[in-house]
């Protein structure tokens, strides 16, 4: 963050004030404003208090206030808004929808090719393109979980470069906030919880280590196949130190034989990395008679074939490493291969189980139906269900499985689809963890389906899915490249506004952007950022021990201000997934929770509201809209707010300012990413 001298700060504030005046009051002429004296209270904003404020937030994007960049950009732009042209400035109707040309290129890449081709075939008109205001807010939220600062909004809108959208995406993808957001996204996918309903406990240290593994991988832009391999094939004895050791222990279940653990671990690998939740069904029973209406692949698979997948786990001793002799309730998790019975590995004793033999078919009890010999077969060799590949005797089974999984085309398809579901609202295959591999190839459409299943391709855009998957492979599983590809597409950049009658059935055509309610953490962080009132959460067991943003909380269970965060359904990475539906409790939280009200009512001089209220009414309103909603107020909105602020004494004006800030936090265009 640039540090200002007091003198320079004063000048900048003058410029800011003047420009806001131009925008709001005098559209035709810019006039110079008298220079503020150094002792003017407004100057503290850019002076001593400002630095303190920034230090408190310890985040370069925390200060939402107007900076010198905004000022200079506003100065050159001299945008003119009147009631008459307001709509065309904010919602331009010109083709492409932008004041720049980025979107006027007809179509970019495979996403647009297939999305617009299908829209055309179905004779469904796409929504208009996003305005710059819509785009900068949407993309900043989707990629970093934050709202853009006013500086970023204004800089972006006023940039005249033709590639400014791509540049924005690049900048966001390389920001520290991107790391926060995608660490959470992957931790959600990989069920990184402190404890789950199977009774598995990772402890806060394990959760932090798992987050650390994800975060470091993202930071290095580690190819996703590499990341997956490291988790599937992990070995080691200290899950607090070695983050990737935390994945497989999450699926240890008691109350049954060791095969139950192998089964659930294999099923989880299949679900997370191959989108094949149905493997879990097959580990109890053949697909026929159970998956007939759901999956042609599942319908054709047997329990014995599924055992082949579980067998990859059969040489793995998932152990609790009890490092404190006086406390059995703390331990690391360890994963070791080929452990003989009655041996000790690290700090764990393996009593009866033989992890040097393949998956045994002899069980009487447990959580799954009895396993029995198949003919003369009493043990199942590790066999990859998609191609029959057999792990060589004596090899590292999980390493073999990791290679098979990550070199499977379905691996790429699965991540591409999860990502699509996030950016576009619905997966190309949905639900995104229930792929039917036999209904995915448009050049080889399904045949011989059971009567209960329509013999159709599963994906809404089958060729797009496959080509995206191929392109993900070609990029060497580059997650950043995949995100660039999606967010730079014209399809992603369609507006959520839709002219004419909207047919819900067209959602899967992606004719408009489907809004999503902000995540719990996103709403929290948007309020912290835009109010200028910081938040601090500390726990000695976390690494780092103190965080200032909800997006940096290590897990959703019992962290941060629960009365505010929990109603927004952040999930628990176990039996309650993150979700986006609205509720009464959310409205109550946004209207009344202490987290919001202390920020609305703060009497600190450094808050956005305090700074804004030092400006004339119209500028104050504009500042708040830009800071909270990432857009300018419409003339009607401006007039309404100014009318409430004007001719009031200082106390009443402060309260009206608070009313406005509070209303902005409760506005539907704050709550949703549109």
């Amino acid at each position, binding site marked *: 963050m640039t540090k200002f001298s007091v003198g320079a700060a004063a000048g900048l504030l003058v410029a800011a004030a003047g420009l806001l005046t131009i925008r709001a009051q005098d559209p035709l002429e810019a006039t110079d404003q008298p220079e503020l004296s150094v002792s003017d209270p407004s100057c503290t904003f850019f002076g001593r208090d400002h630095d303190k404020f920034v230090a408190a937030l310890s985040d370069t994007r925390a200060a939402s206030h107007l900076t010198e960049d905004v000022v200079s950009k506003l100065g050159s732009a001299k945008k003119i808004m009147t009631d008459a042209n307001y709509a065309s400035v904010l919602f331009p109707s010109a083709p492409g929808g932008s004041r720049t040309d980025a979107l006027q290129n007809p179509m970019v890449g495979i996403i647009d090719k297939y999305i617009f081709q299908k829209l055309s075939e179905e004779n469904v008109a796409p929504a208009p393109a996003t305005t710059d205001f819509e785009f900068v807010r949407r993309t900043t939220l989707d990629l970093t979980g934050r709202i853009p600062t006013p500086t970023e909004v204004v800089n972006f809108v006023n940039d005249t470069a033709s590639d400014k959208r791509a540049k924005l995406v690049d900048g966001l993808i390389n920001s520290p906030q991107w790391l926060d957001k995608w660490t959470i996204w992957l931790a959600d996918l990989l069920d990184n919880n402190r404890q789950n309903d199977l009774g598995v406990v990772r402890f806060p240290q394990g959760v932090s280590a798992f987050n650390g593994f994800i975060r470091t991988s993202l930071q290095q832009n580690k190819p996703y196949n590499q990341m997956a391999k490291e988790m599937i094939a992990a070995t080691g004895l200290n899950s607090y130190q070695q983050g990737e050791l935390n994945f497989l222990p999450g699926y240890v279940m*008691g109350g049954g034989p060791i095969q139950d653990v192998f089964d659930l671990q294999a099923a989880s690998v299949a*679900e997370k990395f191959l989108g094949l939740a149905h493997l879990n069904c097959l580990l109890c029973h053949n697909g026929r008679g159970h998956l007939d209406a759901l999956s042609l692949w599942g319908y054709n698979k047997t329990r014995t074939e599924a055992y082949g997948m579980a067998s990859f786990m059969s040489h793995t001793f998932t152990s609790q490493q009890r490092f404190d002799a006086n406390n059995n309730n703390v331990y690391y998790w360890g994963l070791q291969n080929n452990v003989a019975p009655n041996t000790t590995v690290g700090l764990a004793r393996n009593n009866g189980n033989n992890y040097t033999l393949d998956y045994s078919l002899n069980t009487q009890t*447990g959580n799954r139906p009895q396993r029995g010999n198949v003919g003369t077969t009493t043990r199942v060799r590790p066999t990859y269900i998609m191609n029959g590949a057999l792990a060589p005797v004596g090899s590292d089974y999980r390493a073999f499985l990791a290679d098979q999984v990550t070199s499977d085309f379905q691996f790429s398809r699965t991540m591409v689809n999860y990502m699509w579901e996030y950016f576009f609202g619905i997966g190309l295959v949905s639900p*995104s963890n229930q792929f039917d591999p036999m209904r995915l190839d448009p050049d080889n459409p399904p045949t011989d389906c059971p009567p209960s299943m329509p013999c159709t391709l599963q994906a809404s855009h089958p060729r797009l899915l496959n080509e995206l998957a191929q392109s993900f492979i070609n990029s060497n599983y580059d997650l950043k490249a995949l995100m660039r590809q999606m967010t730079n597409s014209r399809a992603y950049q369609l507006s959520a*506004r839709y002219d004419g009658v909207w047919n819900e059935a067209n959602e899967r055509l992606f004719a408009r952007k489907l809004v999503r309610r902000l995540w719990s953490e996103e709403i929290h962080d948007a309020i912290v950022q835009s109010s200028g009132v910081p938040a601090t959460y500390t726990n000695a067991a976390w690494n780092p021990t103190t965080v200032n943003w909800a997006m940096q909380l290590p897990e959703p269970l019992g962290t941060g201000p629960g009365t505010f965060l929990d109603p927004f359904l952040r999930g628990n990475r176990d039996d309650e997934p993150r979700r986006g539906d609205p509720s009464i409790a959310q409205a109550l939280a946004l209207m009344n929770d202490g987290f919001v009200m202390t920020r609305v009512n703060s009497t600190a001089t450094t808050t956005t509201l305090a700074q804004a209220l030092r400006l004339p009414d119209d500028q104050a309103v504009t500042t708040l809209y830009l800071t909270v909603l990432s857009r300018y107020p419409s003339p009607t909105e401006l007039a309404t707010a100014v009318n409430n602020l004007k001719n009031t004494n200082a106390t009443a004006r402060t309260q009206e300012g608070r009313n406005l800030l*509070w209303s902005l936090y409760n506005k539907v*265009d704050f709550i949703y990413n549109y």
Partner: protein
Amino acid sequence: MNYITNKKKQRDSSVEFCRLHPHRFRSFLDRPDISRRAFFQLAGAGLTGSFLLPRASAVTAGQVLNSGMLTQNSAKKVIFIHLTGAMSHVDTLDFKVTNGVTPDTFAPNTVNGVAWPVGLLPKLGAHLGDVALVRSVTSHALVHSLAQTWAQVGRSPVAALGDIAPNVGSIVALEKEKERTASQKFPAFVALNAAAASGQGYLNASYAPFQVTPRAGAASITNTTNSNGQTTFSTMYSRLGQYDGAMRAQAPYGADLKDMDKLYSAARDMMYNPVVDAAFTVSNADSFRYGNGTAGTNFGNALVVAKQALAADQGTRFVQINFGSWDHHQNIYAANVLPAMAQQLDNALGALIDDLKASGRFGETLIIMMGEFGRTPALSAAAGRDHYSIQSVLFAGGGVTGGKVIGATNATGSAIADFGWAGSGSGVKRTVWAEDVEATMYSALGIDWTTIRYDDPFLRGYEYVPFAKDGNYGPIKELFT
């Protein structure tokens, strides 16, 4: 532990297999609900329109079917008390005297024909003529979190649809929505001191447990008052209308914005609402009365709120209260362990039954109290009791015949000696499972427990009680005769 001990039975019943199989699959992003979007999401998954389920019944996505069971329909509302941590059954509802072990202060006696720890649970003892005890209940699992979820969703949390299974209270909220009137402002499903309660599963968030932490002398619902005071809040809310009314009405970005506006109206209705305040505020007098006479307890306060919220007739039909912790592995008889917990339980539950009977609402209110499992009949080396699969469940009100004891364990409480009920229809006498308790709740409320909703994300069909249509689980009819 062995869940399946009878090999023959296991082979005979594929249902027995399925009941226990651990499916863990869901989308980690948004779980579909029965919103507009979800329906089309499903339709697009290649399952458009009519399809055939494995059991060859033709159903359509979104359809809700049942087999037309005759329900008990004797209760309007439920108070579900979940004793988390698992209460020792042999010290309480299935009291066994062990010489040299049972403390003298428990004052063993026979009340209403039932062996009872009069010193431990005097008030409940005085109400034995009003409550029914089922002593032949077995839990499927002995892991706290797993078994607690099991008790709330009535199925294995790791079985088919287990991950997306709604809390029984959410299903009740959904089923009773048709009886709701416009003037009713309370959430249908209220969870008291139950932050860890199972949620609405795949259903819409409007059926979610509405979390309240009751407090004495103050309004209990989080965020129904604003720190700026009512007058200022009214101004703020009217400003919100000025600033956001147009966007909410026009919803330029889609219908979700309108949905949110409706929820704001509902939220506003709950604020500064004397009816809400009256129902969710615990007076000090009531708090003390449900407590120990001179001080309140969290559990007592919760029962006061449960009573008041249901009496308000504002649409609340299901109240879940979590009360723990009963996980007494060590020194169970120390004064601050089981006796302290039991006293809180006894004072509060005794007062609740008194009040419900006095107000004439006992008959319409079904009370169910259960833990996730029981505790070992033998005292451990640490003078505690560990996890055990057998427990007793208390039923009262809502048409339940008071004074009944259904089922019996052996002399030590270690095994079931008499199931005490006819079973769920297959003619086989057997233990009572959490699924049967769930079916009993539904039946008492007039909800067909065999209902299957074909609106779940897998279109597999969400069974209110798993395999109930095959008679594998069902209500304990003996409670009502």
